[in-house]
């Protein structure tokens, strides 16, 4: 209550201009504290006062700054919960700009025998922090004599990533596992975001994977059907997205831990789903002479 009262009062004062743009529309308290009337701010810890850069185009500058720190996540990974557990699937291509540096990268990282993490963004970042998370989970098991929950593990990772926010880490990962409460799936990223959900896809190929995943999803699928859905979604993403490709791996996480179900080369999947019919060669779009 006190807060609101003070803010209302302070707005009526003519403030010395510590900011370089009009703050009347904002409800942030940052602009109020500082050099305004001292009797009003006694007892409040000052909110962090931001110094803003002197540019003509503030929004453009902000966008540029964000883009600089955000390397593109060229990959496709997905995970979804269904009645029997969690399916986790990913492609295996690593690209450096336009060059394909590897077609056989392991993007599904085994944190411990009942938890998996996916890799999207910086490979080194993901590998290191997942391993680090594995260590912390094991320590938790030893100190508390029980396994850590997926909720707890994802929270540990999210807090670590939040503390490195803005330093250029690029991690877009999903933590999938099975604990006492059943299947669990969390999305955690290097901006510090952590979301609980039933269906996620991360990476540059994720829009394509979402299309297939969302239209084919049913909660009551069998394990084989769910695996096939994951495989198909990854295949379609590798077809459309230039930065995804290689091998589509599918893992299943159940009550007894994770199990790798398949690792199919997406090229072979293409010719399996769309076999070449041996008639005359398909007519490409011919340039028609006007």
């Amino acid at each position, binding site marked *: 209550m006190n807060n609101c009262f003070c803010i209302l009062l302070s707005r009526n004062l003519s403030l010395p201009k510590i900011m370089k743009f009009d703050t009347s529309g904002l409800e942030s308290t940052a602009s109020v504290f500082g050099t305004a009337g001292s009797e009003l701010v006694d007892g409040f810890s000052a909110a962090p006062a931001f110094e803003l850069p002197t540019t003509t185009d503030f929004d453009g500058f902000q966008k540029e700054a964000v883009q600089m720190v955000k390397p593109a996540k060229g990959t496709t990974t997905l995970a979804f919960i269904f009645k029997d557990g969690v399916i986790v699937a990913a492609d295996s291509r690593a690209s450096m700009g336009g060059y*394909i540096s590897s077609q056989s990268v392991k993007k599904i990282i085994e944190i411990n025998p009942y938890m998996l993490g996916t890799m999207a963004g910086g490979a080194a970042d993901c590998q290191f922090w997942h391993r680090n998370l594995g260590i912390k989970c094991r320590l938790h098991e030893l100190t508390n004599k029980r396994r850590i929950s997926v909720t707890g593990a994802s929270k540990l990772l999210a807090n670590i990533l939040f503390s490195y926010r803005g330093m250029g880490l690029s991690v877009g990962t999903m933590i999938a596992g099975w604990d006492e409460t059943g299947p669990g799936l969390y999305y955690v990223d290097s901006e510090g975001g952590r979301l609980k959900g039933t269906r996620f896809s991360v990476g540059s190929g994720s829009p394509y994977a979402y299309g297939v995943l969302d239209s084919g999803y049913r909660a009551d699928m069998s394990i084989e059907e769910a695996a096939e859905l994951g495989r198909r979604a990854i295949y379609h993403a590798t077809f*459309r*997205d*230039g*930065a995804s490709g290689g091998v589509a791996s599918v893992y299943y996480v159940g009550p007894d831990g994770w199990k790798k179900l398949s690792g199919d080369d*997406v*090229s072979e999947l293409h010719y399996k789903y769309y076999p070449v019919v041996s008639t005359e060669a398909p007519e*490409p779009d011919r*340039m028609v*002479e006007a």
Partner: protein
Amino acid sequence: MVGKNCFAIASDRRLGVNLQTVATDFQRIFKIHDKLFVGLSGLGSDAQTLYQRLVFRHKLYQLREERDMKPETFASLVSAILYEKRFGPYFCQPVIAGLGNDDKPFICTMDFIGAKELAKDFVVAGSASESLYGACEALFKPDMEPDELSEVVSQALLASVDRDCLSGWGGHIYIVTPDEVREKILKGRMD
């Protein structure tokens, strides 16, 4: 790539916008006349427009001279057309291949403002061009027969585009000898 009294010209089939693939049957190699082919890599719309311009100029030439253009002449024509747009260029790298007098193979490539680069063995263009240089250099032999040439060109093309995110999704190859033109669609990785 040049063989013994023949040549092969090949391209991938992808049309994309940055990382998204829009089509997998895009035609990039065009016939000017039976012994002259041009491949245009780069911006899709510029490739099509440039092709239409070149066909138009060639038809005029045919009407005036009552014969087909020699590949060397055609290369000079392409170079001039590209340089005309020096300060607002077509974003295309052409690869020209043809059989000249006495069915001697002629190949050349250009940058997007028309700098001709003649070669006796092979020429490459596109986003995977560095890979292609390596693959062609490794696999090329002088005086190959058409069958061996088509095999070499297919292998070089598929190997190179498999290392490039922005190329691939199949291949298209024309093998041209003095008697016939063979067209093949290659089955490649679709990722």
